[in-house]
């Protein structure tokens, strides 16, 4: 569903919600997705959930990736999912990474985050998951 019969490269938004200055992981992931042939919109630091959703809609992305190492994921991720649904864009898959304890990860997946990756995940695994999610095979 996500690709809606589209032919071009996969478009992904990589965003860092909240007041979190750790951007290495987000940049590493963005470059890995680029090297896999995707068009990655890197929205930068300190995005509000509203800004993340707005960017995803304007950029018409197939996938949203959230990176967070500050510990604020339980507040921010569900907010983003709710806003997406409110915009009738709940079909855009969301995946995430950073410092997210297992217990939180379980709850966030229940809430609708498709996949969550912690430190040490191989970039190949992230790329493969991104391709699968963007193609709508969630």
């Amino acid at each position: 569903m996500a690709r809606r019969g589209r032919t071009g490269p996969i478009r992904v938004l990589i965003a860092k919600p909240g007041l979190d200055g750790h951007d290495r992981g987000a940049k590493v992931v963005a470059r890995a997705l680029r090297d896999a042939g995707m068009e990655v919109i890197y929205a930068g630091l300190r995005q509000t959930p509203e800004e993340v959703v707005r960017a995803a809609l304007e950029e018409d992305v197939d996938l949203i990736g959230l990176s967070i190492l500050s510990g604020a994921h339980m507040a921010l991720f569900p907010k983003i999912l709710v806003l997406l649904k409110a915009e009738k864009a709940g079909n855009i898959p969301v995946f995430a990474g950073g410092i997210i304890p297992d217990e939180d990860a379980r709850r966030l997946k229940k809430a609708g985050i498709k996949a969550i990756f912690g430190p040490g995940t191989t970039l190949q695994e992230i790329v493969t998951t991104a391709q699968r999610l963007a193609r709508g095979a969630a």
Partner: protein
Amino acid sequence: MTGSPRLPPVARAIVDGDRRALARTISAVENGDPRVAGIVRSLYPRTGRTPVIGLTGPLGVGKSSLLSVLIGQLRARGKTVGVVAVDPSSPYSGGSVLGDRIRLERKANDDGVFFRSMASRGEAGGIAASTREVARLLDAAGFDVVFVETVGSGQVDVAIRGVATTSVVILVPHLGDEVQTLKAGLFEIADVFCVNKADLPGADLAAKDLSELVALGAARDGWAPPIVPTSTTTPSGIEELWTAIDAHEQFLDSTGQRTQHERARLSAEIAERVKDRMGREVAERLTRDPELRRLLDRVVARTLDPATAAEELFRTHYAPK
């Protein structure tokens, strides 16, 4: 406005301010999806009256930062703004990291701004093949001003002239030698010069150097490009920059050059489209059509040269009788 009843539903939605319809149509245009040809065609009559401002200049001079403050300024005056910002595609993977959005500061709930990032997809010249058509969609969507940010390449991005009504060339202090090498291209392109990062030392000197260069280059059709120092960090000069852009837009109207330039751009666009179309067709026929294959054989055997072969092919197959 009731508008034409012929508008297809998606085109109608775009005109009525549906931003998702706009976003999806842009993707389809980028991907060359034939299903949106009718939408694009139906919107064309609604385009051509909006200022399209090109922002070009070397890597990292502050194009996106200036865009952000210009947007703030225009929003404060109640003007709506559509943006397409181009970044390079990787020649290796075809992928891209599009980072122009990082500098964007605006209220997330503001429908008066639409910002779209775009990969160049192998196109040289600083914009993508579909940038012109996407700028047109933004025009049709009714934004008061459309901005196009080019790829920040080493050279000057000439292709922007085929899209923008006013082109702003952005430089920074201490470009020194670089300005010398850019020189020829600069005058071809710039309607307005901007010396950004004027908060850094050397800005006065850069503006002075530039003004000497501008004085050397003859004013083009009665317009001498102004030089505006700006800083996005202070910020300063932003109002002056918009005033300079606006002055050029008014100059286009008062002299009748707007129509003249638009005519030249459209003429170039049609020629380019025909060239693309014919180029593809000829390349295809040279591999399939027996007669054309024999022509190619002679060129390969060095009994006929490529220029003569092309001329012969054009005369026998394409020139009007």
